[in-house]
């Protein structure tokens, strides 16, 4: 298997992060895990954004992934991190497959708002379900790794490693997908659907695939987040503002490369943690103001700035 520049670069960066996890404080590892798991979700948003679609409902799959992990632990007694993450991904993916049959008909505003409404349906169901703790949610089992049951710092690091591994695999997959003929159908569809159809391809099926991919990725992100935080509840996982944050990170990062979301997610997580600590009443204001700024002045995200700097170096 040949790996290209991007993939090698990512592997190196993530390997460094993995090594660093042994020396940095616990809160940093925790923050890193949350950031990288959000990155997973954003990969899906990236694919959709390139196709000209914005989903305001990724929280649906995020929550499904998280709640699957929680419920499997609570009712089946399963604790293996890999098994449950895979399970969460599958559940989210299947739901995405069902939803895509309807959602792939829509574009632009309708795609965005319909996906949001669907996630709010789940939110409504979760809030009213007493067994799952309603708005309080419930605690998630402590993960084990093929029998290995770490505690404390080791647990944090193990979870972080798993997250890095899963995300690297996902990054490589998405990167290759985007370079393939099928992957180029993202911007092609965005530019001209009629032409795509006249080339003999089904736009509907292509969009279906992307919805399913994004859903599965969000499910994975949700599963990992559930383990890391140790708790699931509707407000933290299914509310439309959660979807909004994923969209925000997508715009912040830019969609030029699979490496971009790592940057955006990390920056987002850092700012969010500090903003919440020092001034919880202005977090949304900061988020909104930054989003406006990005849309108006850096519409292609931070990655476009990285590219510009790189080009200057090459030139």
């Amino acid at each position, binding site marked *: 298997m040949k790996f290209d520049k991007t993939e090698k670069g990512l592997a190196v960066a993530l390997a460094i992060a993995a090594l660093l996890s042994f020396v940095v404080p616990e809160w940093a590892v925790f923050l890193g895990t949350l950031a990288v798991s959000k990155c997973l979700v954003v990969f899906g948003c990236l694919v959709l954004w390139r196709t000209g679609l914005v989903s305001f409902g990724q929280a649906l799959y995020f929550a499904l992934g998280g709640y699957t992990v929680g419920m499997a632990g609570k009712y089946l007694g399963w604790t293996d991190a890999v098994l449950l993450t895979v399970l969460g991904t599958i559940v989210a993916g299947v739901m995405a497959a069902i939803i895509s049959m309807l959602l792939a008909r829509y574009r632009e505003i*309708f795609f965005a708002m319909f996906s949001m*409404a669907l996630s709010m349906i789940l939110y409504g169901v979760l809030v009213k379900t007493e067994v799952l703790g309603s708005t309080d949610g419930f605690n998630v089992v402590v993960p084990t790794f093929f029998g290995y049951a770490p505690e404390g710092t080791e647990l944090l690091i193990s979870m972080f490693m798993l997250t890095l591994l899963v995300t690297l695999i996902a990054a490589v997959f998405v990167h290759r997908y985007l370079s393939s003929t099928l992957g180029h159908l993202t911007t092609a569809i965005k530019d001209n659907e009629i032409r795509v159809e006249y080339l003999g391809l089904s736009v509907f099926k292509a969009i279906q695939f992307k919805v399913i991919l994004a859903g599965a990725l969000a499910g994975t992100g949700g599963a990992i987040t559930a383990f890391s935080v140790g708790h699931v509840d509707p407000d933290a996982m299914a509310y439309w*503002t959660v979807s*909004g944050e994923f969209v925000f990170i997508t715009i912040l990062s830019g969609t030029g490369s699979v490496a971009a979301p790592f940057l955006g997610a990390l920056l987002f997580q850092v700012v969010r943690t500090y903003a919440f600590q020092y001034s919880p009443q202005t977090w*949304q204001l900061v988020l909104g103001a930054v989003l406006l700024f990005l849309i108006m002045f850096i519409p292609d995200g931070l990655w476009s700035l990285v590219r510009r700097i790189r080009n200057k170096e090459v030139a």
Partner: protein
Amino acid sequence: MFETLTDPLTLMAILVDGLVYASWLFVVAVGLTLIFGVMQILNVTHGSMYAFGAYTAATMVGWWFDNDLPEFGSFAVLVFAALVVGLVLGPIIERGLLRYMYGKDEVIIVLVTYATFLILEDVLLLIWGTDMYDAFQPYGLLGTTDFGDLTFSNYDLSLIGLALVVGGALWWGLNGTKRGKLLLAVIHDREMAQSFGVNVNLVFMVTFILGAILGALGGAFTAPQISVAPGIGVEVIVLAFAVVATGGMGSVPGAAIGALAVGLVRATAVHLLPQVELFVIYAVMALVLAFRPQGLFSRAEARKI
């Protein structure tokens, strides 16, 4: 559960609650559909208008009663609060921000209004803090009506009247006046209207302010019914969108039908199967959109190639 459906009292309760809720939905959602129809913008800040309307109304009503002013004047205060919010926030957002975004992709503009909404949410907190506000005084002023074992608050019932007034005024305004017809023309075909000399920028500004006032009106009249607290704007956006999408984006009659559909279904759920209350609202929307993607009343699409 379903046996109670045949009980006339339950039916009555469902019908009245449904109409009341539908009226509330209509007043809250009609501004959103109007703005979308004219400007092709899905205005997420509509939730802020609602919230600001509620908070402003609560504050003003509180002040009104603290100064022992005539009780029934408090209704006028509610309307006044809505006007203040609409006339202040409306121009700021439209002239100060949105007009620089016209012509950009629909979804980008939604994101812009979403970002503005986030900012306004915290502005609200900065002004009013995290306390809850009450403005219950107008609520009791109108008394109640008894119907067998059921008791309805006349304030709630008056919402139906409010919806009729708003709906009627819009209907007359849009179809009966020259200015209103210009608005309809812009909804139908912006470029065409422009080439006929319609000042589309002015129309946009007026429409946005009108939509803002209507959103704030919804919030103002809700204030006496609830404890005004942070976060009330967020739920409203999703609900308003559900109503508007069901009825057809940009259609005022559509908003009315959408509100009725959602209102009645929700009332049925509340009385018969409360667990699905939130679910059914979006389920109605999903169902309508599954069969008629553009909503119940919608605009035609032009030929592409």
